[in-house]
């Protein structure tokens, strides 16, 4: 936090901005000046993908595996902050949410979790598994026509994850998977976009657009694209292999110490 006597000039922009190389572990854009974050021991791993693609299943399995290996794990999700959860529920229920307030409510929620959960966990050395990250917000807002550069500036306070796994799926496979489990809901079907009254058609059109948005971000944010049409354990194997290659050379997990 700044002090009243310090006449600090503007903090220099950290990171390389939204269009440059993603500064893994650092702020994407201008960051939070009163919260310097360099040199923390934790790792931020984001699992991205659309609704019903199987993110939470994969995260549960990853958590098990990491904890057995001796890593401390913290999970964080999208719209789970204590500050904002009631407000977001009210807003979703009342249909008064226009696209800008929608985006800003989610950004507020994310800022709350970033400052109170994610950054403290990273500084304490945890592996933070994020079920969705800012890319979901960018994709949803992009589909709704919010200015892309404005969105990227807005999320310039976000930390670039060390790894982003994008669970990639096609709409056809997604539809059967969602119908098999919990069915289609109003927001996941983009009914607010008023494509029509038919939830099936709306879901297909909306998710198609969402998937295109996600793909368009793959290079910009260095997604590791994982084919999510395969069985759960095949996907998990791939995630573990990539994660192990990243974590093991830099850190000695507790179980390797036991074998000495």
């Amino acid at each position, binding site marked *: *936090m700044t002090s009243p006597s310090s006449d600090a000039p503007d903090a220099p922009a950290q990171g390389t901005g939204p269009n440059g190389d993603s500064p893994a572990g650092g702020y994407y*854009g201008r960051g*939070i000046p*009163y919260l310097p974050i360099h040199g923390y021991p934790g790792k931020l791993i984001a699992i991205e993908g659309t609704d019903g693609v199987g993110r939470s299943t994969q995260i549960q399995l990853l958590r098990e595996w990491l904890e057995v290996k001796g890593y401390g794990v913290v999970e964080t999700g999208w719209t789970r902050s204590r*500050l904002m959860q009631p407000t977001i529920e009210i807003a979703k229920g009342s249909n008064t949410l226009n696209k800008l307030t929608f985006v800003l*409510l989610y950004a507020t929620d994310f800022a709350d979790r970033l400052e109170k959960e994610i950054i403290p966990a990273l500084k304490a050395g945890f592996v933070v598994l994020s079920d969705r990250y800012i890319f979901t917000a960018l994709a949803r807002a992009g589909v709704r026509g919010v200015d892309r*550069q*404005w969105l990227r*500036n*807005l999320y310039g306070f976000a930390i670039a994850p060390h790894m982003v796994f994008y669970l990639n799926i096609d709409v056809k496979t997604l539809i059967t998977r969602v119908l098999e489990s919990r069915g289609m809901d109003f927001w996941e079907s983009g009914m607010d976009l008023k494509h029509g009254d038919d939830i099936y058609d709306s879901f297909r059109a909306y998710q198609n657009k969402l998937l295109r948005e996600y793909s368009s971000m793959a290079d910009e944010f260095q997604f590791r694209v994982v084919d999510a049409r395969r069985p759960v354990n095949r996907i998990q194997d791939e995630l573990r292999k990539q994660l192990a290659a990243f974590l093991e050379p830099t850190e000695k997990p507790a179980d390797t110490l036991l074998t000495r």
Partner: protein
Amino acid sequence: MLNNLTQPHEYPGKLFVVEGIDGSGKTTQLALLAKWLSAEGYRVFVTEWNSSALVKAATRTGKKKNALTPMTFSLLHATDFADRLLYKVIPPLKAGMIVLADRYAYTAFARDVTRGVDRQWVRELYSFAVRPDLALYFRVPIDVSVDRLMARRVKLKFYEAGMDLGWSTNPLESFRLFQGKVLDEYDQLVPEFGMEVIDAKSSITDQQRLVRQVIAQHVQTRRMEITDDEPVV
């Protein structure tokens, strides 16, 4: 990049905003201005900072629990602003009305930056705002503002006094430190956004006379006429 805050708007209505720290007298001046404009026959709508129903719940929880960080404080107020802009400000502007805003994006620029939020980031955050036809800044020395608030026996609020920053445990001392810094930020905003400065030390009547003079330059030709349209029967 959006640049609505630096480009003139194209709505038929007019947007006038008043800015200044607590105790600058801007709300009093705004009320007198609204009275005058209404008496002159204009249709006037007044909107206040941080008043939308949507974010009131979160602001209340956050303030009660003292749980807001400078970033969430900033983003919540931007959410409130976006909500009011789209539902309360733009429709009357489209209808050719006069919208009077008690505080605008400049309040966020001054306060959030004082709290340690990035100066450029918060400007980009509000770049979706409509540029006011006129922004009046009521400049007042910190001592005058404190005297006015004390005379009214106003209980200094936690965030208005900047108590969240932990600069002082004494509310009055914290208010002086925090609002003093906010004044410095406002001084930078005046040339950056071409705000009209009103000396808020002078008498209420003198200030209002000046306010009306300045506003008159923007509204004289837009005075609402009796409409030619026949009412639909």
